[in-house]
């Protein structure tokens, strides 16, 4: 009986949120995202590329919830940050960017990620 009451309490806001989302024509109540726009990547010719250069991976994501809320930083600056400590002597080159989407529960929760694989070379 307690479980039914708890489910009932959760169902009310869930229906309200879903109903509002549908009535609003999929508009978003709150959006705060950073999306990638453009980037001309460095190539092996821009650094002193060597076969021993390490390969680095990173991922940056943004999220959608209940068709109403959208937040996260999936931009180029974010996905390329924190990979090189000594930026005056090393640089990321030859990056490959991919986008991944994951959706759960009819799209009530969506995760959109920008993933990067690149190499770090001496400049």
């Amino acid at each position, binding site marked *: 009986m307690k479980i039914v009451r708890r489910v009932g309490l959760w169902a009310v806001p869930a229906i309200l949120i879903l109903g509002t989302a549908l009535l609003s024509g999929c508009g978003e109540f709150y959006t705060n995202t950073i999306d990638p726009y453009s980037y001309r990547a460095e190539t092996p*010719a821009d650094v002193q590329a060597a076969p021993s250069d390490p390969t680095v991976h990173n991922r940056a994501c943004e999220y959608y919830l209940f068709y109403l809320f959208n937040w996260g930083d999936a931009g180029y600056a974010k996905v390329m940050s924190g990979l090189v400590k000594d930026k005056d002597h090393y640089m990321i080159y030859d990056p490959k960017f991919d986008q991944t989407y994951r959706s759960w529960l009819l799209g009530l929760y969506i995760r959109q990620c920008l993933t990067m694989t690149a190499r770090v070379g001496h400049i």
Partner: protein
Amino acid sequence: MIFLWGLVVCLTARPAAAQTYTAHPHIISLKTLTVFYHVTGPLSTLPMTRRDLPPDAVDLGEVRGRSCQREVNIPTSASLQATTITAAEGNGSYQKIIEQIRKKHPNLAGIYDVKTDIHNFSVFFGVYSSECTQILARGYALLGAAPTAKK
């Protein structure tokens, strides 16, 4: 029936909107009842890479800039589907950002390794929204001009 139709529209519209991203002019769009509209946004650029630098270039390190377009939408009725009265203003162009960076680094000759992102912000179903162009790059000065940064 309307509820089911809305659900179908939402489920089909979301992935389509997310997957059609390409580089395109990022300008706040013109609405039906627009009372004021003066916006500038990024369109295209060919940023330099390290090998494009002139031989006498001096690296200035990481530089960043950000510039925004803003919009206010006032609904004409209580409905969430109501027509809105709109005003949009702002300059989110590459040119504006370069000017900003140049103010911080007076000796800046140019930028390279440029990463451009778009910051989208909106609240209350878009009553207020902004689209900001933000750049993270490396700057360079030409030899002969002291590479100093204004604090």
